[in-house]
C-alpha cells in the first residue's frame, strides 16, 4: 500500500502544516514516511509545494514521480493545475476554490475551475468560506485536510487528535476553530 501526495499552494497558506499533520498521522499508523518541503526564497508569496509519501514499505525517493500521485491537495486552484502532471490516472485532485491573485496575469477563474471539474476525480472546496464560518480564515488549511481525509490512510479521529495537539499551545479557542474547520472540510467532500 502506498499513498503519494503532492501538496500545493502559495507561500504563507499553511501548506507545510497540512503536510506535517498528515505525515504525523501516518507515522502513528506505523507507516513509512518521507516528507519533502520547500524552504527559503520560494516561500515569499511564490508557488510552493510539498511532497508527502506514505507507504507500508520503505520509501526510496523523497520526490513523487510524475503521473503517480494518488492525491493532489491544493490551497489554490491555479496551483492545483500546476502539478497536474503528477496525478496518477486513478488519482484525485482536491483544491480550494478561492484564488490568490498576487500576480497581474492571473488566468480566468471560471476556466480554471472548469478545467478542474473535467477531471474524473476532482473535489472543489470553498475552504476560506468554510474556515471563516468555523471562526477564522487562517484555518483554511485544516478545511483542506478534512476534504482529503476520506482518501488518507489515517483515521479521521487520529487526525483530529493531532490537530488538538498541534494547536494546543495556542489555546482552546484556536483548537476548536481548527477542529470545526476539519469537520467542515470532511462534510464538504462527502
Amino acid at each position: 500500500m502506498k499513498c503519494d501526495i503532492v501538496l500545493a499552494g502559495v507561500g504563507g497558506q499553511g501548506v507545510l502544516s497540512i503536510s506535517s499533520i498528515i505525515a504525523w498521522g501516518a507515522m502513528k499508523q506505523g507507516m513509512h514516511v518521507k516528507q519533502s518541503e520547500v524552504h527559503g526564497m520560494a516561500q515569499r508569496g511564490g508557488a510552493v509545494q510539498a511532497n508527502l509519501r506514505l507507504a507500508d514499505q520503505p520509501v526510496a525517493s523523497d520526490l513523487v514521480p510524475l503521473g503517480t500521485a494518488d492525491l493532489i491537495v491544493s490551497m489554490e486552484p491555479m496551483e492545483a493545475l500546476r502539478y497536474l502532471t503528477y496525478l496518477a490516472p486513478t488519482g484525485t485532485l482536491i483544491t480550494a476554490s478561492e484564488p490568490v491573485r498576487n500576480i497581474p496575469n492571473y488566468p480566468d477563474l471560471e476556466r480554471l475551475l472548469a478545467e478542474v471539474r473535467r477531471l474524473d476525480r476532482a473535489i472543489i472546496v470553498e475552504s476560506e468560506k468554510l474556515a471563516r464560518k468555523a471562526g477564522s480564515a487562517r484555518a483554511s488549511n485544516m478545511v483542506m485536510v478534512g476534504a482529503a481525509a476520506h482518501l488518507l490512510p489515517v483515521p479521521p479521529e487520529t487526525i483530529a487528535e493531532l490537530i488538538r495537539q498541534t494547536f494546543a499551545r495556542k489555546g482552546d479557542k484556536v483548537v476548536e476553530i481548527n477542529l470545526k474547520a476539519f469537520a467542515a472540510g470532511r462534510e464538504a467532500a462527502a
Partner: protein
Amino acid sequence: MSEQVLLGDEAVALGAVHAGITAAYAYPGTPSTEIVEYLKGYQARHGKPLARWTANEKTAYEEALGVSMVGRRTLVAMKHVGLNVAADPFMNSSIVPIHGGLVVAVADDPGMHSSQNEQDSRYFADFARVPCFEPADQQQAYEMTREAFDLSERFHVPVLVRLVTRLAHSRAVVRLGDGRAENPLAKSPDKSGWILLPSNARVQWRKLLDRFGEIEAAIADSRFNVLELGPTSGGLGVITTGLARNYFLEHRAALGASPATLHVGAYPFPVAKIRALAARVERLLVIEEGYPFLERYLRGILPPALEIQGKLSGQLPLDGELTPDIVGRALGREPPRLRTPPAELVVGRPPQLCAGCPHGDTYAALKSVLAAFAVPLVTADIGCYTLGALPPYQAIESCVCMGASVSMAKGAADAGLHPAVAVIGDSTFLHSGVTPLMDVVASQAKMTLIILDNSTVAMTGGQDTLLPSRALREIVLGVGIAAEHFHEVELHARHKDKIAEVIRREIDYAGPSVIIARRECLETAKRKKSTAA
C-alpha cells in the same frame, strides 16, 4: 534505541550532538540553516553544546578550528556558496593536525531553489584532499555525521558531509544511537603543525599526501560504499552516489534483470570497487546529484572500450536537479502519459516581497530619485531584497555574492559611472559589506550605500542578526564615513518623501555616503508579537 522524525539537516545536527561536539557555528543559508537552528534549540533545552550564528562562514570555520586545536569536537555548517567564503581556512585546515574532530556540513542546492549557482562541494573535498560523506537519506545523514568525527580524529583532517536540498529539507524517521561524551579540554600536542609557515606547511602537506593512502583504504572499505554485483555479468551496470540512489531504487524493480550496482556514499572514490563493477559490465550508467564528479573521474581509470553514460554523455542533464523521472528515462523506462492543463491557465508565480515590506518603500523612493538620471546603476546583494529585481520594482541590477553590492558600486564609480548606488541588507552588510566599505572610504569613491535594515536575517526565516541595529552606526562611522554623509532614516508611511530626499542629496555629493533605511521586517515583528502573546 529511540526514534525521531528529523529533517536531513536536523539529522546532521543530532548526529553531531551524539558525537559529543562542544560547539557548532554557522551563518544562515538555505538549505543549511536548520542545522544550527536545531542546535540552538537543543542548547536552549539542554544547556549545551554551544550553538552560535557567526558573522560569516569564514569566521564560523575559524572558530571551529580553534575548538579543534584545544581538543574538542566541533561542527561548522554552511550552504555551498558559503564554502567559497570559508575556502581559505577550509583549504588550509586540511594540512593542520586537526585534534578534536572537525566536521563541515555543506548543503548544496542543485536546481538553485534558493541560490545563485549549483556548485558541487565534493570538488572542494577533493581539492583539499579530505574525506567526504554523501548521505542518501536522513538515517545516513545522522550516522555519517557521527562517523565523520571519528574519521577526523583518526586521520587528523577535517571531514566534509555533503547534503543536497532534497535531503536537507525532507523529513523521515531516524533511529538514534547513544550519545558520546565531550572530549576533555586538551591542547593539540603538535607544536609546529598549526603554524603554516612555508617550512612547516611543506612538512604538513607531505604528511597529508603520505597519509592519503590510509584514508583511501579506510574509505574503500566503508559500509557506505556498497557493491552489489549480482549473479549475471554483461549488460548495464549502475553507479549511484548520495541521494541519487533513491531515484534509481524507484525503478529497479521494473527493470527486469537487476543491474550490477555500486553505491558511493564516501570519498575518496573506492577505486577497487569501481574497477570490480566495470569488469563485469558492458555499459555503465552514472547517476549523481550535482556535477558529473565521479563520471569524469571514471574516464581516467576505466578501459576506454567501456561505455560510460551519465551527464557528460547526455543521458542525464548537466544542470538542474535529478528527479525520479529523469533517472527513469536514463534507465530506458518509458515515461507515463501525463495530463497537462492548457498552458495559458497556469502562469508563473515568482516569490515576491511581502505586501507592506519596508524594502518596497525604499525601492520606490530610490527609483523615483534615479528617474532623473540617464544611466544610473544600482548594485544589490543577497537576501529578501534581491526580489526587488522582479516586477513591480525592477529596482536593482546585480546580485553576485555576499557583499559584492558595495565593491561593485565602487568599481563602477571608479570607472566613471554616476550615480552608483549599492543596496545591501543589514545582515549581509555585517557578513561581507564592512570590508569593501573600507575600500570605499580609502579611495573616497563617489557612491552611495543604502543599508536596508530590517533588523533580522529575513530570507532564511528571521534569525537574529549578529549585532543589533544600533551597532551599525558605530561601524559605519568607525570605518570612516563622514558623519554629515551618514543618515539613519526610519521608514514611515506618513513621511515617505524623507528617504527620497536623503538619497537625492547624497547622490549629488562627490564622495562616499551611507544611508540606513530602517524598519523591522513584517514577518519578524509578527512572530515577536505572537511569541510575546
